[in-house]
């Protein structure tokens, strides 16, 4: 599924959100593997990955999702950065789905922050 109606700036920002979320999921899973198969971080990583899939689905097929991984490794910081980026995305029909994504990221932040 792709969204070819989203505005260029909003699409670029959303692509950055997707990259941050993907990296956060990778970090959560890496920490989970260190803690072992019963770590709750496996499910946190799954939740973040699901959010990143939602973000990617809102992008056009040509969206740039490559690029260097972000420098920070802290999961909560990565989620915070992703949420802050979503503030620049207008809540319009062309970006339908941004509201559930915002809620998902905020829920994940609460889950990731002791």
């Amino acid at each position, binding site marked *: *599924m792709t969204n070819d109606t989203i505005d260029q700036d909003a699409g670029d920002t959303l692509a950055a959100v997707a990259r941050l979320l993907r990296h956060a999921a990778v970090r959560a899973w890496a920490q989970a593997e260190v803690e072992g*198969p*019963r770590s709750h971080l496996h*499910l946190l990583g799954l939740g973040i990955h699901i959010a990143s899939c939602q973000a990617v689905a809102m992008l056009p097929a040509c969206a740039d999702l490559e690029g260097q991984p972000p420098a920070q490794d802290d999961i909560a910081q990565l989620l915070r950065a992703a949420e802050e980026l979503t503030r620049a995305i207008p809540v319009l029909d062309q970006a339908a789905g941004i509201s559930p994504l915002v809620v998902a990221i905020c*829920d994940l932040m609460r889950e990731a922050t002791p």
Partner: protein
Amino acid sequence: MKRQDERSVGELLLDADFTTRQILMDVTGDDAPAMLRTWGEVVQSASELWATLPQPFRGTTSPIDGVTVARLESMSQAMHRNQIRRGWPGDGPSDERLLHVAETLTRAADLIGRRGGHIGPTDPAVRADLDAARMRIMHTLYVGAHSVGVAAQQHVADVELATTRGMPSRECRAVPRGQDAINRLAAFEQLAGAYVGNQFARAVQGEHVHGPYGSERLQQALIGWDIQAHRTLATNPTPANLVLASRTQAGIATAAAAILHAGARTGHVDAHAYEHRLAPTLDATQQAWTQVATRWAEMTTPAGRTDLDLVHAAGELRAAVREVAHDKTTWARPEVMAGRVDLGEAAQHLQQALSTAVDVACVIRDVAAEDPNLTGPARAMSHRANADIDRAAGRGHRGKDVVWVTGHSPCCATVARPQTQ
């Protein structure tokens, strides 16, 4: 002297939106009574602001728009009346952050009322601005309703736990009353979410609002996941879908270990069987699925898309597990889980899910072994092929397996497939 607020309507709307997000990130069960007392003011302010926005010109916008906000206000008023009738949460302080949201929306309405009389909604740019304002208001209500609902859920969970420790019965009335508030807020959130998600038709057609809870929800989520995983992998076995399928299966194994551990500790599951047979098997299963997911992740490209139906099924499964087994940032204690659901029943649902997971594993194996259309990034596959060859050579299997990687483009190659000579 108070400094005059010189922000524009747009800035005020952003302030209200960002405040509700911050509330959602920080909310706890202790906030629920104050938030429930204040939520009605937020909705009323939003409704008044909506009414001050210039009306659409000659039906340029669907009349449904106004109906939605009217329904939301009506739901909020009904909730408020119910709170008064049942005496819960009762008198007490308001939530300062939600009050700030209500005041910000009221300030925006005042601004439009005083200075926006000349706005003509015939201009396309103005109409776009008005549409954006309406969406932002509805988005704020959606995020805000979710945060009040989260607070109410945590509050009910906290009270239920305290009840098991002998809390006075007077305090226990918060459980059914809180549950009622949760249901009403879920309906509110769904209606507002349908507006911002452009899914109004689905909402008015009676999509479910109050789903099942506890082990029944877990059972339905596990069954729904199994069906969707088979559907997606049968029609679209891409690496991106295979990653999510494998990670979710690993998550099921992790959740099963946590829930069965709680069952063993509280007498719902045979403790000896859990410790000596179930736990080691679940750990091994989890690690195997994680290994599979890691392999498929190497074959995905960043632009790879995941089937949204599979994404939704995984999300529902994760939410159902959290409802049973999580407490804020980690696993709930065994007695907390036991207070939420019948752990013996939950264990049975998980056992069935783990049995059917064998079939999902077979499907994934068949994709890896037989799908002629499987592709992946050439560099990653080359590394993987070399690593596999080195590992086989190290075990003395030289000449037995050959891994083929066929290049199609600089960034894509068909899957490496072992072939026995």
